[in-house]
C-alpha cells in the first residue's frame, strides 16, 4: 500500500528529466525498492511488535489492563524501576561529564585507556557484568565475608541492581558528550578564563550550557536503557517477587505464569516509556531547534 504511493512520488523525479538521476547513479526502481525494503522492515520488526504489545495488553479490556498494573507486585516493580533509574542517572551524569571533560578537553598519558574503559560496558555482555558483581559481592565472593560482617546486602538487593544498571548504562552519557565537546574545542573556555572567570564558573557558565543538549540526549538514552535492562539485573536480582524484580523481570515472570494480559500491560508501560522518550526528544529538537543548531555548530 505504501509502496504504491511511494512509487507515485518517486517516479516523476526518477524520469530522465535531467542529470539528477545520472548524478545520483541510481534509477527510480532502485530507490523505490530501497525505501520499500526499509519501510517494510520497520513495519515488520518495529511497528508490528509494538502494536502487538498494546493489542495483547488490552485483549481483555481496560479493567483487566488496570488490574494487571494495579497488582501490588507490578506496582512495586514499577517503583523499583523508577528508583533504580533515579539513582543511576544522576551518578551517570556526574561521572559522564567528568569523563567526557577529561577526554575531550585535556591531553594526558593513558587517555586512550580511559576511552576504552568508558566503552567497555558496550562490549561486555550484560550477563558477565552481573556475574562479576556476584563474584565480587556475593556471599562466596571476594568481599562477601567483609560485607556480611558489616551486615550489608549488596547482591540480591537494591544496591546490586543499581550497580549492575550503572555498569551497563555508564557509556551512554559520556559517549554522547565526547564528540560534541571535542567539536566545540577549548576556545570558549579559554576566553572565559582569560577574562578572569574561575575554572568552576567557566564550567558552569560556559561548558555546561554548551553541552546541555547532548547531555539531555545522553540522559534520555541512559534512562531508556536503565529502565529496560534485563540481563545484568536478572543475574543480581534474586527474582524476589515484589522486592527485587524490575519491570523487565516482572514481565517475564508474569508471562511464565500464564498471565499474559498482566505481562503485556507492564510491557506496554515500558513501550510507552520508549515512545515518551522519543516524543520528548522530538519535541525538544523542534522547540529549541535554533539553539541546538547554534551549540552543535553543524
Amino acid at each position, binding site marked *: 500500500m505504501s509502496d504504491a504511493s511511494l512509487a507515485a512520488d518517486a517516479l516523476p523525479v526518477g524520469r530522465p528529466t535531467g542529470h539528477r538521476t545520472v548524478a545520483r547513479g541510481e534509477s527510480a526502481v532502485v530507490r523505490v525498492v530501497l525505501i520499500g525494503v526499509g519501510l517494510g522492515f520497520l513495519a515488520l520488526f518495529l511497528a508490528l511488535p509494538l502494536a502487538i504489545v498494546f493489542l495483547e495488553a488490552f485483549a481483555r479490556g481496560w479493567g483487566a489492563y488496570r488490574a494487571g498494573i494495579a497488582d501490588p507486585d507490578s506496582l512495586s516493580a514499577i*517503583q523499583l524501576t*523508577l*528508583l533504580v533509574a*533515579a*539513582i543511576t*542517572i*544522576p551518578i551517570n551524569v556526574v561521572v559522564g561529564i567528568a569523563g567526557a571533560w577529561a577526554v575531550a578537553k585535556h591531553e594526558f598519558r593513558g587517555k586512550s585507556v580511559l576511552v576504552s574503559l568508558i566503552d567497555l560496558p558496550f562490549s561486555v555482555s550484560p550477563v558477565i557484568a552481573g556475574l562479576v558483581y*556476584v563474584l565480587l*559481592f*556475593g*556471599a*562466596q*565472593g571476594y568481599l*562477601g565475608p567483609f560485607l*556480611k560482617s558489616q551486615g550489608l*546486602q549488596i*547482591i*540480591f538487593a*537494591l544496591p546490586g541492581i543499581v550497580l549492575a544498571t550503572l555498569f551497563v548504562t555508564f557509556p551512554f552519557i559520556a559517549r554522547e558528550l565526547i564528540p560534541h565537546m571535542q567539536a566545540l574545542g577549548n576556545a570558549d573556555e579559554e576566553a572565559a578564563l582569560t577574562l578572569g572567570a574561575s575554572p568552576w564558573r567557566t564550567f558552569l557558565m560556559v561548558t555546561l*550550557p554548551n553541552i*546541555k*543538549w547532548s*547531555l*539531555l540526549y545522553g*540522559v534520555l538514552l541512559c534512562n531508556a536503557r536503565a529502565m529496560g535492562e534485563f540481563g545484568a539485573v536478572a543475574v543480581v536480582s*534474586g*527474582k*524476589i*517477587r*515484589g*522486592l527485587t524484580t524490575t519491570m523487565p523481570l516482572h514481565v517475564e*515472570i508474569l*508471562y*511464565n*505464569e*500464564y498471565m499474559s494480559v498482566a505481562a503485556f500491560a507492564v510491557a506496554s508501560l515500558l513501550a510507552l516509556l520508549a515512545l515518551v522518550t522519543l516524543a520528548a526528544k522530538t519535541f*525538544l529538537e523542534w522547540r*529549541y531547534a*535554533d*539553539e541546538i543548531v547554534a551549540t552543535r555548530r553543524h
Partner: protein
Amino acid sequence: MHQLAGNKVIAKLFTGAAFLLCFLVIAGGVRAQTELLNVSYDPTRELYRELNAAFIAEWNAANPKKISGIRQSHGGSGSQARAVIDGLNADVVTLALAGDIDAIAQRTTKLPKDWQTRLPHNASPYTSTIVFLVRKGNPKGVKDWSDLVKPGIEVITPNPKTSGGARWNYLAAWAYAEKAFNKDEAKVRDYISKLLSNVPVLDTAARGATTTFTQRGIGDVFLSWENEAFLALAEFGADKFEIIVPSISILAEPPVAVVDGNVDAKGTRAEAEAYLRFLYTPRAQAIIAKNHYRPREPQHADPKDVAKFPKATLVTIDEVFGGWAKAQPTHFGDGGTFDQLYKPGR
C-alpha cells in the same frame, strides 16, 4: 532568551528527578515487618501462592507477632540453590531435589548436612513424577520411553544443569533404559545419547520448557513434571494436549528446608519452621493435591483431586541410583554422563 528557556527546562527536569528520588527512597523504606523469603523451583508458583495465603491467615490468627507476607523467588532449582549459596537471603528453600539443598549445605555453613532428617518423609511434603505431555490425539504415537529415540521425534526437556525437573527426567529415562537393556551400560548410554540428540532446545527451567512446548508449539513430546502437565491441561484446555504415563518413571521428592544461617540472622526461625510444618497439615495437603502435586497424606485431600493421579510404576532415586549424593556427581557434575552424552547442534 532561548538559551535561558532551555536552561530552565533542564533545571526543572533535574529538580523533578531529585524529588522523585526522595519520594521513592521514603516510600521504599516504610515497609519493615516480619517477612519470609521462600526460594523455590520453577513450577511451584501457583502452589505457593495458595499455600502462603493459607499459612499467613492461620499464623496471624494465632500469634501476636504477625507475618506481613511471604516473598517468592522462582527459577531453575540448580540456579536457585546457586543464588542462595551466593547470598540470596532465603528463610526457607523449597527446591526440586535433595541434591540442590545438599549443595547449599556443602558450600556454606548455613545448613547442617543432616537437614533432610528434620522433617517427616525425607523433608518432602509432597511427591510428583515425570510424565509425557503430547499434543491432542498423540499424532506421533508416543507410548513409552522407547518411542522417544525414534528418528524425527522432537523431545522437549529443560537443561539438567540448571533445572531440577530435567534431572528427574534424565534419571527416569536412565532408569527405564537400565531395566530395558538389563543394565548393559553401553546400551543405556546409547539410548540416552539418542534421546538427547532428539532434543532441539534446552530451556533453563521447567516453566520455560512448558512455554516452549505449549505456547511456541515446538516439539512432539514434553518430558514434564506431572504437576506441570496437569497445569498445562488446566490452562490451555484438555482439547489441546494429553498426558501419557510411561511404563516406568521416577518418584520425585522435592524437599524443603529452613536455612538456619539466614533465619537466625533475621530472627525469623519460629515463623520459618512453622511455615514448613504447615505444609504437612491436612489443610496444606488438600491444597497440594488441588495444585496437582501428590500429597503425602492423601486421606486429607479431596478424593476427586487424588483420583486424577494415574497409577504408575515408580522407582526411587535411592534404589536405582544410590541417592542424590551419588547421582548428582555421576550424572550431572562436570564431566558426568550428561556432559559425555549431550552433543548440542546435531
